[in-house]
């Protein structure tokens, strides 16, 4: 009887031990995943803020750049977002833009939205909107940075929000 008691105790304690080990392992893996995710998000925020600053505060280089001669992408000109430059941006290859903006492994989506939150369109060409990049598609991580400004939309000045989205 004494021996049986000991053996059942032993089995139960082994079961408990392995249960504990399993729980700790799962928790540790989750924690590692969280840390990785947090690092990724911080990296994405940092990049998104830098990209938004570059686009919103610089005119790019050369000053009157186009899709074939651009060295640095920038959208700001004389107090406004320059839509001509945005149109040049739209003509550029996605991978080239990603490389020039330094998005790293992340996808990028840039848009200009009006005060109602809609992406602005060219009045003379309604299907032409001012957005660029890969739209978000089943993303694991998304960060969004906004900048404020105005644009001259075929003669009408409009307040806009430039949104830079990085996602992966």
């Amino acid at each position, binding site marked *: 009887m004494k021996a049986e008691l000991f053996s059942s105790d032993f089995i139960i*304690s082994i079961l408990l031990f392995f249960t504990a080990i399993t729980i*700790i392992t799962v928790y540790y893996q989750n924690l590692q995943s969280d840390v990785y995710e947090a690092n990724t998000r911080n990296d994405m925020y940092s990049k998104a803020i830098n990209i938004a600053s570059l686009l*919103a505060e610089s005119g790019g280089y050369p000053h009157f750049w186009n899709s074939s001669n651009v060295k640095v992408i920038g959208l700001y000109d004389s107090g406004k977002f320059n839509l001509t430059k945005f149109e040049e941006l739209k003509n550029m290859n996605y991978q080239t833009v990603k490389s020039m903006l330094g998005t790293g492994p992340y996808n990028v989506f840039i848009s200009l939205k009006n005060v109602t939150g809609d992406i602005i369109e060219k009045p003379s060409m309604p299907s032409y909107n001012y957005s660029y990049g890969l739209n978000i598609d089943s993303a694991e991580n998304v960060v969004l940075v906004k900048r404020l400004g105005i644009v001259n939309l075929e003669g009408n000045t409009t307040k806009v929000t430039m949104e830079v989205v990085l996602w992966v």
Partner: protein
Amino acid sequence: MGMKGIVLTLDSIIALLIMITVISLLIFFRTETISPFFTAQQLHSLSEDALTILSESTLREVTNQTLLNYFIQNGVLNQSDLDKKAIDVIGALWSANKPEAANISKDILNDIVPDNIGYQVLINGDNIYNSSDTTRPSYNDATVEISSARIASGYEKYKPTSGYVARALARAVKKNNTLVVMGDVITTSVQSSQNRLNVTYIADIPDDATILDTYWFIEAAWATNKFSCYMNGNKIAGCEGSIGNTKLYSGDYKQWMISGRNIANVIFKYAAGTITTGDDGATHLVIVYNTSKLSTLEDYGKQYFQSVTSNASIEYEKPIFVPGNISEMAVRLNVVNGTSVNNVTLSLRWNGVNYKISSKVPVDGIAQWNNTEIKNVLNSNGISYNILKGRFFWFIADIDTYHRSEPLGYGREINGSDSYVSINYTALEEIYNYIDITRILTNFTYSNSETCLGLSDFYRYSRWNFNLTNKIPLFAKWQFAWGYCSQSPPPKQLVIANNIVLYNSSINPFIYAFARFGYDTDPQGILISSDNKFELNFTTGYAVNTINSLGEATFLIPASVSYNGIFETNTSAENDANQRLRSILGEDVSATEIVNQSYSVAGVPYMWGPVSVRIRMWI
């Protein structure tokens, strides 16, 4: 034995349950957070963008046309305003005290600043618009707040645009100013009736000064001490034979005073029944003079000791007041080469507590302590230089180990002209083009007579009232004739300025010798360009002689006035400017030479600003 196995198993199950619970809680409460740094960066970018929109866009471009039409119909704006930068129009409306500045600011920013962000527009600190009362986050609940600012200026609205404008500058003035030489606390033994404590007080007034009035209050350490007084080497008859304290008036000694440096001496003597003599720190020499110097502020960077001689050890307590942030301090004491002084001990007193710096043997008559030595002692006691700004603290120097009672010995001497506390501090800003004035505060009341001292005129409650309207306050200082009936627990000491408590011995140490108190304008509200009130409130056992105490306030007056208003003739414009200048100078200063700058304006109104336009955002 079987029971033991079950118990152990139960233990393991309970342990497992606890572990599962803890882990579950950890998982449950694990939240994903965005670093406040990124939030702050985003807010900063948005506030910068908002300022860029205001400063780079015309009103027409960024403001709702219906609102603009409404303001044009009401005469608040005109058509030409629509093509001005938005920031210029908002600034002009602000300068004209028009509330429409808020409507326009809100209209421009409200539909573009994200809804989860609160914001405020300020000009020179004045609120123009604050979104806190809307559905946006309230400023009071903000967790992260960032602001950006730009300098702006522009033309004023609603003013005539042709005629003459003028400004005036007082190039030469005559001002009535007051110099107060406050005595330090200096004592020595007079166990031997032969001993004397000779204290020299230096009173430097400008070389061109005309002395209008003067008085000298002398108070010895003990009520029975005798003393003699001299002004520039001349014995003052009215002082001879004084016991305890005396007040000398202009007629007693003014005839010996000169412009520039005056040297006053008091020789404190033995008196029956006392073993020490000296200055109890309430002595003050007051000189009211007239000068053409715009700036007469003393140099707080080098505060000299008074010259002292005695044939016994000396305890010298020097109050220091610095109207700025202190970065470095050093002390130098010249106890004169060739004397037999064995050592000099230096301490610093803050809030009634002494902190010993160190004792030194003078080398060639000099004992000195550098910044590191002083700072280390203070820091090790949790005191930083920051808290000394705009308040009195004390350096205490013992020339030889101090004994209250000791026989006549060799001569000790402090050479005041080469003994000083040197202080590096941030000097007062905005002094240029301002005139400093120091005034004795004569409006005071007192109550609650303290009888335990056996002296008349000592009160537990004292109050000073003074008005600094249209002046820029710098600091106020008091010197108190104090009295204490030793008791345990010690009496309560409460100091209040404009209803703000500055010192409370219930939470701070009891101050044995409440000989000085002073403060600058920090914290906000204690010294203002309006009515000011300073109160002392002690409980039984502590009191000051309010009548023999002294308060002074130092403030600035602008020496110029800017353009204001357009006049039909050049003469009218200049007369107006001169009148405004005289008004601002007040009774303290008279301008002996005024320089005017005037010009005609046609279609060009005068300007507002430069001002700081600030946008604050929070989340």
